[in-house]
């Protein structure tokens, strides 16, 4: 054998994603179930790359209307006013509360976009079997997974405001279509991050070593 890292796939072993038990797969094509906890065993998550791509693309499509369409329609004394996410940020910034504007900007615009870009980057590097910065990429993946849920801030505020401010006919707040798309972006990126298999990042390095041998 070589100095290379021994991997389960190389040895024909499979570890359970749930309880971590190393076992021999029932069959290479259909590894079967974990003998200890009953979890379905997979060498790598099924279609991880394809599925993640699909979800990222869907999220990217939703990202456009999420930012173009109003997330909130405020009706004050009969004159409705539609606000988009960027409109809200500009309003906050112009009215002097730039820290708030920054928070909203990061939580609602930058993070979803960064997640999309990060996942796309991870997928591309995996597909190109890059062996550079594997540690950094793994850390990036962890960050994407952790930070994902915080983007729901906007949706959260929206639902609160809509539920609380219903003072017809003085003032009323109605959710806009934008918030639906925004929620879709957040959920889709979260699922995409979930369906990505970080072990893929390391597969290429072992393959490269094999080739070097």
């Amino acid at each position, binding site marked *: 054998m070589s100095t290379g890292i021994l991997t389960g*796939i*190389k*040895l*024909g*072993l*499979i570890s359970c994603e749930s309880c971590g038990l190393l076992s*021999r*797969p029932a069959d*290479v*094509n259909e590894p079967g179930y974990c003998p200890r906890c009953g979890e379905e065993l997979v*060498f*790598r998550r*099924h*279609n991880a790359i*394809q*599925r993640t791509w*699909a*979800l990222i*693309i*869907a*999220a990217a*499509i*939703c990202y*456009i*209307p999420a930012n173009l*369409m109003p997330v909130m329609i405020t009706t004050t*004394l*009969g*004159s409705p*006013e539609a606000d988009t996410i960027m409109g809200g940020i500009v309003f906050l910034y112009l009215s002097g509360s730039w820290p708030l504007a920054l928070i909203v900007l990061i939580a609602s615009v930058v993070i979803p976009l960064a997640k999309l870009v990060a996942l796309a980057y991870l997928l591309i590097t995996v597909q190109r079997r890059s062996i550079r910065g594997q540690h950094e990429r793994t850390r990036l993946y962890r960050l994407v997974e952790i930070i994902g849920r915080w983007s729901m801030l906007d949706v959260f505020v929206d639902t609160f405001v809509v539920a609380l401010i219903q003072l017809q006919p003085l003032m009323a707040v109605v959710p806009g*279509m934008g918030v639906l*798309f925004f929620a*879709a972006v957040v959920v*889709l990126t979260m699922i995409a991050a979930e*369906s990505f298999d970080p072990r893929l990042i390391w597969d290429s390095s072992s393959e490269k070593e*094999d080739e070097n041998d």
Partner: protein
Amino acid sequence: MTDNVDLNNIPQATAELKKHRRFSVVWIIPILAAVVALGIAVQRILTEGPTITIVFKTAEGVEEGKTYLKYKDVNIGQVKTVKLSGDFVKVVVTAKMDKSATGLMVEDAKFWIEKPRVTLSGVTGIGTLLSGNYIGFDVGKSKKAGRKFIGLEVPPAIKIDQLGRRFLLQADDLGSVGIGSPVYYRRLQVGQVIGYDLAADGRSVDIKVFVNAPYDNYVTNATRFWQASGVDVSLGANGLNVQTQSVLSLLIGGIAFETPPSASEAKPAAAGTVFALYSDRTAATAKHEAIVQPYVLYFNESLRGLSVGAPVTFLGLPVGEVTGIGLEYNAATDVLRPRVDVALYPGRFRAFVKNASAVVDEKVQNAGQRHALVQNMVDRGVRAQLRSGSLVTGQLYIALDRFPDAPKAKIDWTKSPPEIPVVPGSLQILENKINGILAKIDKMPLEAIGEDLKKLLVTTDQTMKRVDTEITPELKTTLEDLKRVLKSTDATLVGKDAPAQQDLRDALQEMTRAARAIRVFTDYLERHPEALIRGKTKEKP
């Protein structure tokens, strides 16, 4: 147990991951997202209305992305940008219209900024105090689409779908009329002034009025319009005349119209018909005479109190007016004489004749027949006379009335204008009579009478003096004698021991006794009525 794992016993997995070439179901998600997003985008593009620009002088209360465009209070668009024009003179407002409003964006569509306005005729736009200003809209008539508009400074007074008709009035000056000033018909507000402008040649003012349906049918080609602003006080032969419309028109002016009754068969005027705007009702109604027949009158008396415009009446009905007063030099006699020009309106005669027929019409219309009619009237003694319309003001008017005693006269129709014979005015006659009386008084020998009276008084005085000196002493002695006589009479009749009184007392006593005897007798008779027959019976012992 597992110390010596025989790796060879573990089955060899294929190093390469089996590639699932088939299309993953998960791709439905992005396809779905794309379809929804595209659907929304397509819907947006399809409902995209036109973008228009409106130029205003100021953009009071117009905000980017907040101000709406409203037609009949329905949102039809929204303001996108508000910018100054290139030369910084105007404001250019860009608005995104709804797809449904595309058809409304025609060349002559009107836009204005709706805001609270307080005018004398009312308050509008209260709602904008709360909701903010918005851009009002009214559709135009043109079929051509337009994208660039000039905003109005004030909302149009008449909305395009309001039923009625517009008319153009030409006036010498605007008076106190303004946009929104009411238009009255029989003191009922039936319309309003919607605009005014100086005529192109600067010689008159064009005032646009709108008369609401159904009142617009009362505007005929014969209709007269006049300024009904304020109070019209006129002092004429008819006395003090005060004309007002409503209090509102006192403040903001107004226009009234009326159709002369003689033009009752006239058809409603077409929209846009041009009318003259008269300064007052009198002017408006007086000038509608189709036929004007001028005459001249030569009075031989003072014309003081007669003014141009004074009425000429026939049997008390106004049939004309004085058009000129002056003097005329007669070269033949070398004298100046007062000359009064009058205009008679045969049309008015016609209007007063209730059982008017074609014959009368013919007499009025045809000049020859009209002359014959007037000559006929003069033959019957109709003469012009100056009369006092009001003793207080001293205003005069001219009356055509019947004077059967007047000397015969014939109108010379060759002269222009022909002369109507006159008779002296009633005041003149009165004056003449008083003058006659005064002349008679003047003729009396008042001085001689005074002399005689004086002489008489002197004689009387002398007589009185003689009475004083000669008769008074005599009278005194007479009176003393009389006093003496009365005194003696007193002693005889009234004194205590006066013989006359003594006699009277005795006589009264006698009478008392006689009365007593009669009573005794009647008592006896009552008890013994038979005594009247048998006589007095003897008393039983």
